[in-house]
């Protein structure tokens, strides 16, 4: 096997492990789905009557980011609780594959939550067009790429759940700008390309630096 297919199969195996764990234990995804729905209902009561759709759209992004945070906070919990992190680090695979596998698994969870959130948002508040959906997808890539690395950092710290949002939110601001802009601005394409640029920069950075975060 060439090194690239070997790498891909490592990543796929790591991702499958996370998905299978989730299928058996079901301790993250149902929480994310319920959380995103409850947030949207809360937003209905938080918004005064007659607020524009644009304001509601901004709140959708808050719901997405905090749902992602909920998933990310638990992203490394199975490894930590099972003491599996040392084993993963010692495994004969490139360490960045661990990051990529985790990122893809979190992306699957977040996509599932968004598959609930977007129709619910369209039903409760305002219609969502294709550009907005493209914005959600691109921003989710960035959220997962940066988030899974930061979650690994936070997992090494004492104040795990507390510290992750602090690390994550400043880095998520450009994503929110891109996502909200793609939804409400007439020049959606500009925002989409900005999101793609963000994804590219931070995915490369996270891919290259993950090894330093995970090794003792």
């Amino acid at each position, binding site marked *: 096997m060439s090194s690239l297919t070997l790498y891909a199969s490592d990543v796929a195996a790591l991702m499958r492990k996370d998905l299978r764990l989730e299928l058996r234990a079901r301790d993250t995804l149902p929480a994310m789905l319920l959380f995103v729905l409850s947030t949207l209902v809360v937003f209905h009561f938080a918004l005064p009557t007659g607020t524009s759709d644009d304001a509601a759209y901004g709140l959708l992004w808050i719901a997405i980011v905090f749902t992602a945070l909920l998933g990310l906070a638990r992203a490394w919990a199975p490894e930590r609780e099972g003491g599996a992190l040392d084993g993963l680090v010692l495994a004969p695979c490139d360490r960045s594959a661990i990051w990529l596998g985790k990122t893809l698994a979190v992306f699957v969870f977040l996509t599932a939550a968004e598959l609930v959130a977007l129709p619910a948002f369209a039903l409760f508040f305002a219609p969502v067009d294709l550009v907005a959906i493209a914005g959600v997808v691109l921003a989710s890539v960035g959220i997962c790429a940066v988030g899974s690395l930061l979650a690994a950092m*936070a997992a090494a710290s004492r104040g795990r759940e507390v510290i992750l949002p602090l690390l994550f939110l400043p880095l998520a*601001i450009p994503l929110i700008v891109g996502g*909200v802009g793609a939804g409400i601005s007439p020049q959606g394409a500009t925002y989409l390309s900005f999101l793609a640029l963000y994804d590219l920069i931070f995915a490369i950075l996270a891919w290259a630096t993950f090894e330093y975060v995970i090794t003792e």
Partner: protein
Amino acid sequence: MSSRNNLPVLAFATTALLGIAVVLALLVAPEDVDQGVSQRIFYFHVPIALTAYLCFGLGAWKALRLLSVGGERRDLESYTWIHQGTIFGALTLITGSIWAKASWGVWWSWGSNQLVLFLVLFLFYCAYFMLRFSVDEGARRERICAVYALFGVALIPVSFFAIRLASDFIHPTVFTREGPQMTGTMFGSFLVCWAGITLLAYVMYRIELVGKRTDANLRELREALS
């Protein structure tokens, strides 16, 4: 250890330079036609902001060196630069806020992209300290902090661009500061202030570093004695 000896000289030079800078900014530089006396804060606000960028950049540079070459001292140097950067970042927010009050009548304006950028960076680097102090000391903490510092310099241009984009849909009206061109005296005063503030950051960095190293040495000694 010649580097330790020049610190008092440097500190004295900085004090002198800053004294000259204050005189130049407040008395020598001509008054701005549009904004009057409040424009004089420009001679401190902009150099402080530029110095904060410099500190963050140097912190990330040390972090990069730590990851590529290694060396425990680079962790402390990176941390100290970022600490100075955060101090100067907070000063940028304060001076910017005062300037906003004087020229626009409000303490805070989301229309000022530079200020918003500094707020984002300030939050980001405060989280750096939270992270640093909640991870146990050791090689892993050094690397985690270094990686986070590297994310910081990537975030600066990305956020800058994002905030520019956001002002399109949040604030249709954009403040422009393209007043009259700076005259020679104004530009000269600005350069002196800039040099003074940069030197101040460097001296503060050195003092903090010496303090931190003494602290670490003292702790080692105590552990060795006990």
